[in-house]
């Protein structure tokens, strides 16, 4: 029997803003995370050393902190705007309670972490979204943090490296979340018009209002292998067109083929390639 099957994550766990599997430690059984591609039960203790990538190449979803650890130079990350957190602007039923619950349980207080760091010695401003906080959805706090980061980067002539993972706009904030698409886009445009470099690393999944704003506005767009990247959810598309979706629909590999990505980079090579790109786009004055 495979332990993987026992500890398979439920599909809705992320949407519930739940916990990572390692918090459910059982006494003498080695915890594993089953690969959805090859079904291999990866021992949790091994995943950290292999950057949460299965031997078949499947990239497991990771938290924003883990990603910062994989991408940036040791101790180089300095967090910004951590004080900005979600409120309940349209008094959506149940949302305040949900935020309270997340405050107690989730490891991050918001769906994005911002800061400055260096990657292979190259300084940059950085935002990294977190799939474990309401599926990385964008509310006013996420929009505000990302906008502030771009404004900070514009002011200091810093390039921005943005890692996206998101279910889209956060509907519990209604129209306020939709407006964040325009707000963040404005800050990205100012940063761009000032001659600064912006690289987006799109990871699984990047959808909805995030795809339709800052995720797609980078000078260079790179993605993690196998990531779902799209605007509408696959199920919604299927229901709309009443057809079976073609193989590879919304996968990073298909987006590359259709010209919507510059490249796909495996997790192990991201730091080195992003560092090279930052170096090549370095501004003389900075």
């Amino acid at each position, binding site marked *: 029997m495979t332990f993987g099957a026992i500890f398979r994550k439920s599909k809705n766990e992320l949407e519930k803003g739940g916990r990572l599997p390692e918090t459910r430690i059982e006494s003498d059984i080695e915890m594993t995370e089953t690969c959805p591609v090859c079904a291999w039960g990866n021992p949790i203790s091994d995943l950290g050393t292999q950057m949460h990538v299965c031997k078949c190449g499947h990239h497991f979803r990771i938290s924003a902190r883990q990603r910062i650890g994989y991408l940036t130079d040791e101790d180089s990350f300095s967090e910004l705007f951590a004080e900005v957190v979600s409120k309940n602007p349209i008094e959506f039923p149940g949302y305040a309670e949900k935020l309270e619950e997340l405050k107690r349980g989730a490891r991050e207080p918001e769906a994005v972490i911002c800061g400055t760091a260096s990657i292979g010695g190259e300084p940059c401003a950085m935002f990294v979204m977190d799939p474990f906080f309401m599926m990385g959805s964008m509310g006013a706090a996420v929009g505000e943090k990302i906008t502030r980061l771009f404004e900070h980067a514009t002011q200091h002539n810093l390039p921005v490296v943005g890692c996206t993972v998101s279910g889209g706009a956060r509907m519990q904030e209604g129209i306020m979340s939709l407006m964040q*698409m*325009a707000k963040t*886009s404005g800050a990205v445009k100012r940063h761009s018009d000032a001659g600064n470099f912006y690289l987006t690393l799109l990871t699984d999944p990047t959808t909805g209002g995030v*795809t339709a704003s800052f*995720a*797609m*506005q980078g000078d260079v767009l790179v993605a993690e292998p196998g990531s779902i990247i799209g605007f509408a959810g696959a199920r919604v598309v299927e229901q*709309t067109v009443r057809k079976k979706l073609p193989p590879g629909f919304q996968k990073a590999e298909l987006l590359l083929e259709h010209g919507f990505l510059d490249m796909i980079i495996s997790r192990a090579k991201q730091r080195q390639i992003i560092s090279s790109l930052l170096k090549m786009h370095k501004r003389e004055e900075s």
Partner: protein
Amino acid sequence: MIEDTKKEMTAAEKRAAERKAREERVRILREKRAHEKANAEIRKLEKTPYDYVKGARSKDRLTSLDFIKGLFPEFIELHGDRRFADDPAVIGGVGYLDDIPFTVLATEKGRDTKSRIKRNFGTPNPEGYRKSLRLMKQAEKFKRPIVCFVDTAGAFCGIGAEERGQGQAIAENIMELMTLKTPVLSILIGEGGSGGALALAVADEVWMFENAVYSVISPEGCANILWRDPEKAAQAAQSLKLTSKDISALGIVEQVIPEKSKDPEKMLHDLKAQILKWYATISTLTPDELKQKRYERFRKIGV
């Protein structure tokens, strides 16, 4: 003499009787008016947010094309995105408002089954957004103001739309619009659905018709995701705060256009005057001032 008095009295009586009848008629009409007013108010008070959604989607509402025809009699439609196709869900072109040439952009739902199918029910493909951006850049080049009419359930959720970069097309429009160096006015005339509507509503001012709605997601979609039950759409509509009253209270639109008048001619006449008034003011700004104001307009929508 007697006869005369009698005659005179009869005339006075007649006048008094007439006055009395007039007063009675006025009283009845006043009562009737108060009654109708009360009824209208009751209807309004009883109208739920989901009723507003259904109303905004109603086939009886004016579509963008009605506004274009009514306001820009010499409108010339321009087609195509110069990349792949022409999207009939988005109408673009040029026309005069008085003697000022405007670039006009709109999502168009269509009026009957045939035109609705042709227009893809007002849900644009990426080509619609790329046509829109092309014509907005053209407006900037020729220093023409832009007016957009927005009426869409959202961007089309199709296989081809995704493969041709629906998200990328909207993202590019929003980003370019943020710094477009010409005045932009967007008017939400019916349904304002999500990013697909926002792609034509990153403007210096956004106006909204009293019975229009503006939302990040359809109430049905919201109910489906949150409660796995599309039947709870009415509850979702209530929670999403999508009516013009709520949207205005949240500071998202500059003005709500009342829909009291049943006369579309008068409504269009008033709207034209308002657009011209808006342009007279905003055209005094330099391109840099315009960009700065537009940035601040969205920048302040925070936590």
